[in-house]
């Protein structure tokens, strides 16, 4: 059985690179996807994830294992950094979904994916992050509430509003979805 994340973090703080990489390997996938979907940029997503992990090693790190799971803390760190960058760029509505489209993606599926990415990018920031965490990262409402520092009821309401908006925006794709997927 592997070491607990808290133990790995203690080892990493003592300079053990293997423990740090183990922690990274266990958690980086969903964090990267979340950062990528939130910012729309591979470069930003990479940097944000690296920064979030490195922040754990800094002396002033606010992570407290008795208050939150490390996964929740890392999602919160990624979210804060992504939102800061988005605010700096001031281009929340200018999502570029093409920089991570794979060549083998089918044309129609790619078109739909672009439409979904754009529709999500057009959501208000508060709804977008909740939708990404709930749908794509499969986090529970309680976890999302911890990450976004909201009440569970507020998270639920934002998620419902986000889904209602998307249902309207993407309604033209509904029959295509049924035929192709």
């Amino acid at each position, binding site marked *: 059985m592997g070491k607990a994340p808290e133990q790995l973090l203690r080892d990493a703080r003592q300079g053990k690179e293997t423990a740090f990489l183990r922690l990274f390997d266990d958690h*980086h996938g969903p964090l*990267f996807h979340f950062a990528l979907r939130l910012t729309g940029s*591979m470069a930003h997503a990479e940097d944000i994830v690296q920064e979030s992990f490195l922040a754990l090693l800094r002396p002033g790190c606010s992570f407290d294992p008795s208050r939150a799971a490390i996964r929740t803390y890392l999602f919160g760190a990624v979210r804060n950094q992504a939102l800061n960058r988005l605010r700096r760029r001031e281009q929340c509505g200018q999502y570029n979904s093409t920089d991570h489209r794979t060549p083998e993606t089918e044309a129609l599926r790619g078109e739909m994916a672009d439409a979904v990415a754009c529709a*999500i990018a057009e959501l208000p920031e508060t709804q977008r992050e909740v939708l990404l965490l709930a749908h794509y990262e499969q986090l529970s409402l309680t976890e999302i509430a911890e990450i976004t520092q909201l009440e569970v009821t507020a998270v639920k309401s934002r998620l419902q509003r986000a889904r209602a908006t998307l249902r309207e925006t993407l309604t033209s794709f509904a029959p295509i979805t049924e035929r192709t997927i």
Partner: protein
Amino acid sequence: MNETDLDRLLNTWEAPAPPASLRQGLRMRFPRAERRSFARPLRWAFVLALASAVLAIGIDQSDNAWDFRLVRVFNRYYELVIEGFEAWRATSIVTQIRQSEPKVYVDGQLVAHWSMAPAAG
């Protein structure tokens, strides 16, 4: 569009796997502990040696018997430390040689592994 249709549609937006550069970049940025250089302990040894020499010369010139005994005790202690250090170093060097599984060649012919070779040459 019902909830299932919406979920299916949202699932068409796939995120790629994290690139290898993410892990590599993180490794490069990992704050490694600074390796202790040999210069620092050597500096301390130099200071100690200098202090011992100054003390020895001073006591020798003062012709004080009690202080001279003190210096001899100090020197003896110093020799013991040096001997202990030398013994430890010799043992560790022999261990490292043994672990590297050295082979003995005579005229280009493999004679024996270290473990089979006689201890005395």
